């Protein structure tokens, strides 16, 4: 499947079906992130159930602490 992630067209492996899968793929599942799909923010409890479709525009911002 191809997704536009943070503005960049990225091919992701076929086993990725949900936002939860995508966050594991990018090793962001242990972090606190805000995820937007097609301009709508997805609630954390919906990560497991929100299916991604070819061409979806996904924005991911994860929080870090350093400064």
């Amino acid at each position, binding site marked *: 499947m191809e997704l536009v992630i*943070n*503005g*960049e067209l990225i091919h992701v492996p076929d086993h990725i079906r949900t936002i939860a899968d995508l966050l594991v793929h990018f090793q962001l599942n*242990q*972090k*606190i992130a*805000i995820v*937007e799909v097609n301009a709508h*923010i997805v609630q*954390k409890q919906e990560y497991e159930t929100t299916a991604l479709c070819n061409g979806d525009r996904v*924005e*991911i*911002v*994860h*929080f*870090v*602490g*350093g*400064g």
Partner: protein
Amino acid sequence: MNERYSRQELFAPIGKEGQANISAKHVLIVGAGALGTGNAEALVRAGVGKLTMIDRDYVEWSNLQRQQLYSEDDAKARLPKAIAAKQRLAQVNSEVEVEAIVGDANVDELQRIAAETKPDVIIDATDNFETRMIINDVSCKYGIPWIYGACVGSYGISYTFIPRKTPCLHCLLETMPVGGLTCDTAGIISPAVQMVVAYQVAEALKLLVGDEQSLRGKLVSFDVWNNQHTAIRVDQVKKEDCPSCGTNPTYPYLSYEMQTKTAVLCGRNSVQIRPAGKREYDLPQLADLFAKQGLRVETNPYLVSVSLGEHRLVVFRDGRALVHGTKDIQEAKTIYHRYLG
């Protein structure tokens, strides 16, 4: 009247009126590390009326690569960061009143500063979420905007929190992030710092001149090494029942229960630290993270022990930690936040 601010006054959204506003305002910067020194230098050059800086740490050699106000002399003298920053800032612009506080940005101190000195804007230049949650509650309680900034590696993030308008940090995070990824474990390059500083200072100037319409309004993040940039509008995340900014706020991070508890352990040259809120560490993952930094790690099912020169940090699953090799609570807290965020 000299030409000092002429180029800033020629910039139409500021102008002479904006400059007069800037010179009448007070900014509080929490933290005097990379983000704190960058923000401080820019705001002092811009002619802010008063700047308060608070930091508990002293200058070390490993700071000089990115903490722009400090020199080799400061590191040699192990000067407290707030003091070294104030000295340099006085050379940069003697017209600005700079108050340096060498101390812990804890609940009592931040509330005191908010109530007594009434800053117009708070800039977050801390390195941990515990302090940010306190800043967030102080901001909500006293109605002071604050500008979150953070960076690790080549990545950075920023957001401007406006009480009663935007969601607050508590709305965005729900729970406090835990993890071992800090500048001291994952490294940091100065362009990531400077980019966050640029975002923070631009937003601060908009607030100081009263141009709220021009605020970005989005959570922004970028990676200057992997060439990414993204911004998300997060307004819809604001929660009416948020305990920090909702309709019936309790400001939970200003309460005693949510503060880090420390205790010097008698006769053991150790300090125990019990962090605020609930934490749950994945110990094998934490051990792995420390090992990747080349640190000597020992682990068992209950704890991770890591050697740090003359100190040893022992972390339990619930976030409680022992810092061995010191009786100094501030030093122990600094070590704790450095390695655990």
